[in-house]
């Protein structure tokens, strides 16, 4: 065996330009009846009532045709105290075994739908619940539902025969814009920020665009802070995604720039404070003006006027804590883990009390 020092060898960087990589891969798509999930996480409705559900453990997205489950209940949704306890009882288990992963409102019936994991470990089971205007909780049976499922391709391994590839990727949020589903994800091995877009009906998944930002709070240019939650929003007539990152820059970028393989420079329009994880956000109108409502794990619920979104200058210098577009903390909304717009005047939220109880509340838009 001979020792070879690399100083004397040629180190080749394969500058496979992204443009040389296929911009969108033909995706593995499966259509059928009776979807299965390893885990059920983020939910988002398409305009026609198709429910997109992320299987976070499989890094797959399922488009569900809810059929009768979409229309069977009383219209609207009603507040339910101790929601997690009631869900646990309905699913035949203890409240400690229940994890509510998302909450969305059907665009037509205004029923709320919640994704839930029941149990622990590899035996944990997914459930989809409908909450109607009478406060009735029904389990949506997956058995008869039509679905279409697309997998996000995992990053390749350098050694394709090694069976110990422990990389997994999960989905943190999704938004449906102009016929495409935008997906933000996390990997358990790479600290990275990538947004993928998936055409619907499912046929292709692109390679994703890296979304780079200047993170004034960390005093650095940062590619890798993950996008945690985002919403589509039109700025001067152009569709943008408004994204909340960890610790907590608020960033806008036009969807037209989100080309596969591109590195997109987001405009950091606010620094909303460190030591914080954004959880969920919605856009709403009140008194003729538009606002963003964002829940956070340690900084409460923020109400942010969108007036300055078009003109805000990008933050490109370090900041101590907060900068850019300002916000108002909605002190009446505490412990909010999930939120969605229920109707023109109300938001529906899952809020945890200091005692640890998860309530489903309906709160007038602030």
């Amino acid at each position, binding site marked *: *065996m*001979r*020792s*070879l020092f*690399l100083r004397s*060898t040629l*180190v*080749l*960087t*394969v*500058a*496979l330009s*992204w443009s040389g990589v296929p911009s969108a891969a033909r995706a593995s798509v499966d259509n059928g009846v009776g979807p299965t999930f390893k885990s059920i996480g983020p939910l988002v409705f398409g305009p026609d009532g198709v429910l997109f559900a992320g299987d*976070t453990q499989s890094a797959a997205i399922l488009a569900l045709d809810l059929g009768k489950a979409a229309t069977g209940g009383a219209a609207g949704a009603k507040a339910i105290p101790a929601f997690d*306890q*009631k869900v646990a*009882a*309905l*699913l*035949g*288990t*203890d409240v400690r075994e229940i*994890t509510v992963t998302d909450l969305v409102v059907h665009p037509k019936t205004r029923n709320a739908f919640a994704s839930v994991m029941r*149990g*622990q*470990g*590899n035996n*944990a*089971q997914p*459930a989809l619940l409908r909450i109607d205007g009478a406060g009735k909780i029904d*389990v949506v*049976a997956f058995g008869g539902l039509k679905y279409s499922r697309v997998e996000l391709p995992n990053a*390749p*391994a*350098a*050694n*394709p*025969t*090694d069976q110990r*590839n*422990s*990389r*997994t990727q*999960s989905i943190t949020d999704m938004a449906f814009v102009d016929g495409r589903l935008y997906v933000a994800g*996390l990997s*358990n*091995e790479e*600290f990275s920020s990538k947004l993928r877009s998936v055409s619907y009906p499912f046929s292709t998944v692109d390679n994703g665009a890296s979304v*780079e930002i*200047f993170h004034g709070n*960390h*005093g*650095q*240019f940062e590619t*890798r*802070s993950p996008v945690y939650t985002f919403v589509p929003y039109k700025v001067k007539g152009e569709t943008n995604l408004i994204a909340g990152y*960890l610790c907590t820059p608020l960033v806008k970028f036009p969807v037209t720039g989100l080309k596969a393989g591109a590195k997109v420079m987001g405009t950091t329009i606010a620094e909303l404070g*460190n*030591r914080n994880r954004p959880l969920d956000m919605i856009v709403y109108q009140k008194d003729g003006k538009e606002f963003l409502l964002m829940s956070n794990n340690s900084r409460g619920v923020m109400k942010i006027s969108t007036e300055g979104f078009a003109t805000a200058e990008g933050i490109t210098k370090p900041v*101590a804590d907060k900068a850019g577009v300002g916000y108002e903390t909605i002190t009446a909304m505490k412990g909010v883990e999930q939120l969605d717009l229920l109707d023109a005047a109300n938001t529906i939220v899952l809020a945890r009390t200091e005692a640890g109880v998860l309530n489903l509340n309906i709160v007038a838009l602030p």
Partner: protein
Amino acid sequence: MADTTLEGAAGISRTRRFTSAAPVAALVLFLGLAACAPDPGNDGPPRIVLNVAAERATIDVAGLPADQLQVLTAERSRDEWVAILRVAVAADQPPMAGDYVVSEGRLRFTPMFPLDAGRDYVVRFVAPGDLAAQAISASVSLPARDTTPVTVVSQVFPSAGDVPENQLRLYVHFSAPMGSKGGLDYIHLLDDKGAEVKDPFLPLDAEFWNDDRTRYTVFFDPGRQKRGIAPIADLGRSLTQGKTYTLVIDAAWRDGNGLPLAQPFRRPLRVGAPDERPLDPKTWTIMPPSAGSTNSLRVTFPEPLDHGLLLRALGVLAPDGSPLPGDVIVGEGELLWMFTPKGAWPAGRYSLVAFASLEDLAGNRIGRAFEVDRFERSDHSAEPEKTLIPFSVR
């Protein structure tokens, strides 16, 4: 007066009989296992049966007369079914979701989700259409699983316990699959005085398991590891150069069976200087095997690399450029990478291939440090997808 029967492999049931749908006495009539409770079939009297013969345990009402069974074959709403046969985790809790059917001469409730082992379920049956009918109640449960904790933390990477001040992540390996909840409530970092470091890790929760939930990734919060900015006033850095910390993992973290760990885990972390340099493959040493041998290719590094990425982001290309199948072993301290092909090595020009995702302990990549602290100085070009380092087998 035997009201309950247990069928199948095992089950425990405690039955109560009430009259006129009102509880007048709570009599524990039966407690036993299926092995000692032969199935009396569907003869009367009516009784609640925990049926564990099928893959998913069902709750049956056996011993019903034929006319009642006929009535029960009609379609009903869920609320109507619940008024007849109610199964719940407690009497004061909402009824469980499940399907009702008359099958094999019984009314059968199949819960939408499998019954939990060791949990009591309260069952109440009232025959439909008969106001004078007796209500039958029972408490049924599957046997509890073995409650002796056996799962342990089997390894934490980086294995040497020496970390740079800007360490990016830790991998916690377990001897068996864990529960689905995240672990940050159970992972603590103690400083050299034994005081807990507040919030050293990224506040991410459940997403960082591998597929079989035996490895959990913990990311240090990069916002607290930066150089060149004042430490966050109220928190300071998570790790400080020159100090020794202790990583503590509580035994209370539950495994996939809901049991705690068999023992807590402690590991010292000795903190060195921050590492802000990109990886440089020129500093690696490649020791190629001899042609015709089945020996391992050995590659050593001057600093530890990330254990998870060493398993995935390094490989070998054969002389024709195709990926070479083989087995990878990461050596002690993550300073050594060994590759053994499926067959012998033919002579020729090979390449070690390093994917762009390969990182050291601080998240530095080939040609690109984790941190770039000036916006205008940052590299906006596309990252190279992979780096090839040629070597010869002679």
